[in-house]
């Protein structure tokens, strides 16, 4: 399945500047239906309230970190099919292994460029 411009994307990050950056990048890549959440808990509530095609989540967040959000998504029959792209400053191998074990679809380390996001999107949706 390829990406579609009308895909509904949920951007999860506690920093408003990062949410705005990720939103801008996706807009630049042609996606317009983008919603935001401030942490994993807020994201889960939104995911359970509407249909989303992709989750882009930070790792370090208060209330519920990204890895816990990922585990919750994968444990929920109604959500587990949604691709999750983890965007994080944590470049440690252990974090990456933890995310892979939890079922992450792909992983981007900050700071990143629009090209990096595009490459990851192409890979994720080529494999779906």
């Amino acid at each position, binding site marked *: 399945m390829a990406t579609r411009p009308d895909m509904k994307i949920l951007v999860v*990050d506690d*920093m*408003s*500047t*990062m949410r*705005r*950056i990720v939103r*801008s*990048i996706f807009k*630049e890549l042609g996606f317009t239906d983008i919603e935001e959440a401030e942490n994993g808990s807020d994201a889960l509530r939104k995911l359970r309230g509407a249909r989303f095609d992709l989750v882009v989540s930070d790792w*370090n967040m208060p209330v519920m970190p990204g890895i816990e959000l990922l585990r919750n998504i994968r444990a929920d029959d109604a959500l587990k099919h949604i691709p999750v792209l983890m965007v994080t*400053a944590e470049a440690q191998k252990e974090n990456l292994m933890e995310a892979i074990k939890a079922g992450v679809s792909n992983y981007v380390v*900050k*700071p*990143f*460029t*629009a090209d990096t996001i595009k490459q990851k999107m192409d890979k994720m949706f080529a494999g779906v």
Partner: protein
Amino acid sequence: MSSRMNESLQERHSIEGSHDHDLYTHLGDLARYLGETMRELATLDHPLAVSAGQLPRVSKTLTELTSMTERGTHQVMALTEDLLISHRQFRAGLETIQIGLSDTGQEYIGVRAQVFGLMELAENNQKALMGIMTALSFQDLAGQRIANVVMVLDEIQARLLELVVVFGVKQAPRYGGSDRVESLLKELEQAKQTALKQDVADDLLREFGF
């Protein structure tokens, strides 16, 4: 035990006691120095103070520094987004001119070349604008590092104060018994879950003679 041995033991205890006392003094001085440094750092930016009577701790100042950079970053982002929007319109205008030139059936070689050159420039500018947007992620990375520094400072302060209490009780039992000290220790224990209040730290140090 011989009197000589007794004297030797007393001398040893006296030396150990003196070492403990030195250590205790150094710890107290260090805790006081940390508190004063935090206060000085906090006063570097007076408008950040919540009230004149209560100076913010350095962790609060650092957190507010993150908010300041967040606000500044949003301003730059808003301007960059405005430029991106007008740039898309500019590119769309150039594309319309290009199509218009094709529709006339005329060569217009020089004009076509100009338009092509402008289209390339526009594309480069758009890439640069997106580069500015993504480069602003420094704010998030800096914010995370500041949060780590705040956590470490809080931890150091709490541990130093714990040591002051432990050594204070050992050195001079009169410090350890009061209800006030007990209550301060409870606050110190609670502060491990949240940020330590400056007045709790100051009160505790005062109780222990610093």
